């Protein structure tokens, strides 16, 4: 057990390091020198150098030529790569545009994202599970066929179409609720869209998971010895289905922080999604780097946590 946890822990550390490496490559090495966008040329070379220095972009990339392999010297660690690692882990980097600390920005914006995505995800999950259990219970009947068919149709409508369509409907009913966050009421609309747009795919996935489980031997045994069908479904089957379903829920959690990028952008909710998009058009590299790393790190840690919890609750997992 301990060995399993340790092994997963080491894996997670490697993954997080990989993400740091990847963001460094993408945003520092490939994106190149972007000082021209933030320092007016007329201020002269001195201003440019000062700006580069402030954002530590004048340092050597990975290996400091002054101290190539002398790990014990301070200079060895004084390169862009090691500062990148440090800033990634602490979210200390500052925005190019506003000079604000990333941690402050996240603290300020995350609550808007969370207020949209937490209810959306909880409701979507509960609704999908309810429909999927019902459908699995009535499998093979017209209800099953109709719901599955509607779920497939719902999956095929692009997300953007849901947003535009539902917003248009809302605009007909109550125009002030269609955009922005002026009233608390305005949060219902994006939440509803998020639930409606996601429920099709989830119902289909959960239904498959539940039906896979109902074909197992223990279900036949329970039925054969006379346990009523609802008892089997809700006591045995649903409990065993929770594993894949919980994985799908947990791995969606980073999106909670990031918010539904598209929804926030579309409805003018000042969360982290629009921040990422505007940072991209502004080439505000510390913000893009930080937000990418934040989602990846959260994802990795949550996955680690679920794996460990599974191993605690289901001894079969450790054998794999």
């Amino acid at each position, binding site marked *: 057990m301990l060995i399993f946890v340790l092994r997963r822990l080491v*894996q997670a550390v*490697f*993954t*997080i390091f*990989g*993400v740091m*490496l*990847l*963001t460094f490559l*993408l*945003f520092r090495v*490939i*994106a*190149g020198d972007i000082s021209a966008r933030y320092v007016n040329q007329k201020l002269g070379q001195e201003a440019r150098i000062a700006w580069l220095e402030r954002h530590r972009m004048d340092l050597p990339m990975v290996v400091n030529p002054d101290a190539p392999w002398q790990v014990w010297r301070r200079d060895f660690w004084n390169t862009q790569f090691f500062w990148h690692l440090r800033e990634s882990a602490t979210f200390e980097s500052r925005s190019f545009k506003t000079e604000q600390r990333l941690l402050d920005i996240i603290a300020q914006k995350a609550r808007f994202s969370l207020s949209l995505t937490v209810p959306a995800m909880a409701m979507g999950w509960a609704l999908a599970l309810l429909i999927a259990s019902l459908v699995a219970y009535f*499998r093979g009947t017209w209800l099953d066929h109709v719901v599955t068919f509607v779920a*497939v*149709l719902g*999956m*095929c*409508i*692009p*997300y*953007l*179409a849901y947003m*535009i*369509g539902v*917003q*248009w409907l809302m*605009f007909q009913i109550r125009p002030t609720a269609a955009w922005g966050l002026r009233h608390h009421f305005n949060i219902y609309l994006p939440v509803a869209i998020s639930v409606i747009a996601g429920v099709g795919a989830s119902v289909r996935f959960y239904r*498959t998971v539940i*039906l*896979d489980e109902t*074909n197992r031997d223990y279900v036949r045994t329970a039925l054969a010895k006379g346990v009523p069908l609802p008892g089997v479904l809700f006591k045995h089957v649903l409990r065993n289905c929770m594993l894949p379903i919980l994985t799908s829920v947990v791995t969606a959690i*980073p*999106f909670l922080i*990031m918010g539904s*990028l*598209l929804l926030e*952008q*579309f409805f003018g909710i000042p969360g982290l999604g629009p921040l*990422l*998009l505007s940072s*991209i*058009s502004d080439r505000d590299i510390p913000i*893009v780097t930080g*937000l*990418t790393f934040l*989602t*990846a*790190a959260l*994802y*990795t840690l949550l*996955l680690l946590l679920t794996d460990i919890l599974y191993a605690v609750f289901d001894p079969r997992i450790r054998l794999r």
Partner: protein
Amino acid sequence: MAANVDTTVARPAKAGRSLWADARRRLVRDKPAMVCLVIILVYAAVAIASPHLFPNWADSYDYDDINRAPSAAHPLGTDEFGRSVLQKTLLGATTSMTVGLMANVIAVPLGMVLGAIAGYYGGWLDDAIVWLYTTLASIPGIIRLIAIKFAFQDTVLFARTPFEMDLGRGMSGVYLALGVMSWVGTCRLVRAETMKTRELDYVLAARAVGTRGIVILFRHVIPNVLHIGIIQFSLGFVGAITAEVILSYLGLGVGAGVPSWGSMIDAARMDLVVGRWWEIASAVGAIFFIVLAMNLFGDRLRDALDPRLRTA
């Protein structure tokens, strides 16, 4: 002539069918799958033909006819520059199908080869490849795409040659980003399947007669996991089309001059309120049918090619 063949050629009473023949037979008998296949082929034909049919669409401005509702002259109305929305939608198929095809032409072989290598050789190669894909997979999909598009915003590959690829504004940037970022699923499945295949007797036999590892990998192992690649291709196609729409909507997709369903939805998002529904309806309709057909066909294909996965 064809009738004679059966009588003259002596065949064993019950010829064994290969996986492929068996899958083809199942698919041909499956009416919904065939309907979907026809829809996909129609889209492919439109994608190939429309640039030749409407080569001048992009410059066909008509300022006397802007934002007109559907009529006999313009069956799907006109856009904000007076250009035909019908032609725009048909040209959008070229963008979507190219992106879908190219993204998977890059992603699926990449995933298959890496997955097979990881699964077959194991050891540090396996560790390295698994590390690579867990790292990539830990960044959520859309952010992964945005990140790579962002990084390569100003990159132009093969500049000043006939093969010039503008990764910032061109279509190539979109499918390269999608291709490089979406091989993880294929890799994971192929790796797991290869690990099972590696232990089978025929691989042992090949190893026993002294076949080199690389030959076993490409001649014996990969053909036996190929069906995963084909299934992933058809499912990845849907993902690529949807991703292109979202990227174009965010302004990170194909450039403004290229007709695409995503930029049509983006252009029309404020139009619905003033009653101009035709542009967004055509784009959504076009996406809806190809995604539906591809989804259903992918499912049927998986059932036909991988009998173990068949759902009740």
